[in-house]
């Protein structure tokens, strides 16, 4: 199980682990919103509104 495994390998007491988890999740969501999703959306054709060859 990867999430329990990750949890066991995080250093420090519980409050420190929770902080690390919250920060990592925030970082992942931020990079998804800022870079990954804009790129994916451009690849998907369902939003196109221009005419062209």
């Amino acid at each position, binding site marked *: 199980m990867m999430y329990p495994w990750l949890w066991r390998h995080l250093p420090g007491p519980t409050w420190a682990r929770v902080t690390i988890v919250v920060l990592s999740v925030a970082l992942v969501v931020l990079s998804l919103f800022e870079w990954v*999703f804009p790129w994916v959306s451009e690849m998907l054709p369902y939003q196109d509104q221009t005419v062209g060859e």
Partner: protein
Amino acid sequence: MGVTGEVLVTAGVILGLFVVWQLFYTDVLSSRTQNAALENMDFVEDFHVPPVTVSGGVFSAADPDVPIELIPDELKVYTPDGAPIAAEPPAPESFGRLWVPRWGSDYVKPISQGTDRRITLDELGIGHYQGTAMPGEVGNFAIAGHRTTYGKPFADVDKLAVGDALIVQTEEAWFVYRVTGSEIVLPHQVEVIAAVPNEPGATPTEASITLTSCHPRFSAAKRFIVHGELEYWAPTGHGYPEEVFGTS
């Protein structure tokens, strides 16, 4: 729950986040960018129009301290001749504002150069097809915009009716176009943005405008096209065209 389950749950969460991002967050971000673009265009007539009250077809300033200045009739030119035509700026520079009373008395959006999705359309909203006519120019002033998400500047493109005003404001002039018709075409039908719409190769004699957006909503199967023609233009610095207030 095994590793497979964890991966599937994670993928589900990411897909859910994508939907939230696409449907809501892009609107938040793009509206902010588009408002900033409006603010940055330092035109004589501000885009915050004075409040008006309308009674019996006649409208007047709602606040006596903020009078409305309307372009006098003698300054309106009912032919493209002599109109000040701006040069095409480098992408993605914003060079004009689009006012569409049919879409609300407060509808005003920036028009920026280029139709690259990431640089112009996703950020700044309405994009001008490179190489097509500029506002007021004889030919076809062709612009594209999202119908859903990213601030959705052309959300109500299907609600435009023949005769509706499409007003373009540039640094030097106001251009009032009137909708002449709409059509639904396939994405490869570039003739809709030809200098004479749907007559590629023909020499234009009119100043046209063409709006392109996706159709149906949330799909890219077809394109919703609206055509219009210039009714008149007038220099800036003499107030607003009355069409801005949605009175005609």
